[in-house]
């Protein structure tokens, strides 16, 4: 296989070798069911406890506030559905934003069908939630505010602390989907007034199929998966021991390397952004210039369609992603890019590149040259570009 420049780390990441190493014994050697009585199963139980502790520490939370799930989507579904159920007597109004991941948006729509009311807040042109709109949206029957920590497409980081303060002043629960942010930015659930937080292993060099929901002690929570007594009777199912061990290791690594890693990523990301904006005309950066995930760059190239761009990058060995309609199951362009005010045809030509610790300056140089070449080629084929040139 030719050299691969993998710049789609917001979609998923490579499982780190250290994570692999930590997991392997729990598949074939210490495979006991943590619920069993014998000593052999105690090894699995201990591994769960240690992973839970590592994760709790990373968030400044307590161990018994961490509940393992099969990933970010399950955690998001759980947070919304179970809160809706447990607090229905108080009210049936939920506030979220227009730029959430589908795991939140579609769950919100589902709850609307069940008779709940959901307010989807707008964001400004950089993708930041408007705090005054949030304040106005709060009603006596509002039971939950769910705002993502950082956006998966444009990388914008929300003013989580301010949102948490507003929620808590009003006695409303605050959930944040931190699937993209956890491991990339420091999070303190107390300082930020977070009551629930979703995260997913495969976004931080951990395994796929494992994640967690942080639930602050005292929050009334119902089960989402009913059955056995696992996870303090809150989430049934034999624990994914290797996955949980892998997640714990990944969190440990992410926390320990965060400062250095993200500083390096930011530098490369800014180098990438600067070069692309300077060297490719009719291009814009989506998201906030500084308040964004350290590894995220998101561009819109006018007159260019996203899927074509991706396929050509792929031919150069570059993996990226696009908010283009054509790459997703649905045919609507990204709801996030529309929410920040991009017109359809520009939203279509977006490119998200998300770096990892392994990304080098050489990679970025290669990518910039490739983008320049491809955008030029696609524009030369584009009727939109032809019209534009003729009109100018």
């Amino acid at each position, binding site marked *: 296989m030719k050299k691969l420049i993998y710049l789609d780390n917001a979609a998923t990441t490579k499982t780190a070798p250290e994570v692999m190493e930590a997991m392997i014994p729990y598949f074939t050697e210490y495979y006991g069911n943590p619920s069993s*009585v014998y000593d052999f199963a*105690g090894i699995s139980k201990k591994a769960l406890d240690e992973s839970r502790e590592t994760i709790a520490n990373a968030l400044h939370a307590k161990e018994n506030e961490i509940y393992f799930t099969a990933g970010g989507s399950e955690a998001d579904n759980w947070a919304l559905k179970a809160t809706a159920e447990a607090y229905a007597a108080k009210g049936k109004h939920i506030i979220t934003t227009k730029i959430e991941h589908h795991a939140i948006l579609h769950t919100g729509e589902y709850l609307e069908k069940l008779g709940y009311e959901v307010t989807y807040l707008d964001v400004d042109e950089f993708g930041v939630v408007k705090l005054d709109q949030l304040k106005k949206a709060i009603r006596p029957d509002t039971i939950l505010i769910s705002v993502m920590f950082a956006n998966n497409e444009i990388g914008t980081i929300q003013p989580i602390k301010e949102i948490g303060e507003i929620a808590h002043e009003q006695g409303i629960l605050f959930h944040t989907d931190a699937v993209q942010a956890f491991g990339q930015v420091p999070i303190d659930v107390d300082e930020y007034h977070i009551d629930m937080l979703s995260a997913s292993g495969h976004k931080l060099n951990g395994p796929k199929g494992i994640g967690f929901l942080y639930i602050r002690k005292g929050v009334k*929570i*119902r*089960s989402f998966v009913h059955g056995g007594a696992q996870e*303090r*009777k*809150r989430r049934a199912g034999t624990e994914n021991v290797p996955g949980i061990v892998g997640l714990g290791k990944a969190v440990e690594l992410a926390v320990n390397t965060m400062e250095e890693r993200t500083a390096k990523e930011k530098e490369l990301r800014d180098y990438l952004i600067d070069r692309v904006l300077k060297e490719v005309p009719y291009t814009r950066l989506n998201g906030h210039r500084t308040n964004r995930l350290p590894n995220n760059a998101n561009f819109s190239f006018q007159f260019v369609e996203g899927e074509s761009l991706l396929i050509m990058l792929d031919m150069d060995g570059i993996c990226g992603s696009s908010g283009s309609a054509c790459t997703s199951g649905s045919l609507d362009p990204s709801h996030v890019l529309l929410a920040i005010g991009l017109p359809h045809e520009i939203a279509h030509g977006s490119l998200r590149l998300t770096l990892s610790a392994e990304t080098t300056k050489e990679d970025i140089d290669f990518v910039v040259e490739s983008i320049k070449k491809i955008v030029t080629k696609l524009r030369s084929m584009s009727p939109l570009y032809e019209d534009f040139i003729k009109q100018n």
Partner: protein
Amino acid sequence: MYSEKVMDHFQNPRNVGEIENASGVGTVGNAKCGDIMRMYLDIDDDGIIRDCKFKTFGCGAAVATSSMATELVKGKTVQEALEITNKAVMEALDGLPPVKVHCSLLAEEAIHAALWDYAQKHDIKIEGLEKPKSDISEEEDEEDY
């Protein structure tokens, strides 16, 4: 799951068995988990517990607490024995897992039941001893879910 002390008393329970013509015998059951404990006491004329034996149908914690309780009771006066709580037994065993705390109540109750039997047979009144329940089942706080 269990401390080393618990495992030791479980593996090598002290004072298992019966005492013929015991001064007092008490059998208590835990309706909640269906376990049963029987305690035999041999008490001399000065009211000192000379010997103590037990039999238990129950989990590891139940066996270990029975065993430890007999150790604690031996040589004590009736009044001293009465003051042995499940907490004292648990502490002597370096603790029990939270779900197993109720098992230690069996031991405390079994001592009380045997002392009650002794008092009945010898027609004496022991200060602070009430007629034991034959079934102990104490409410545990279940978290709502």
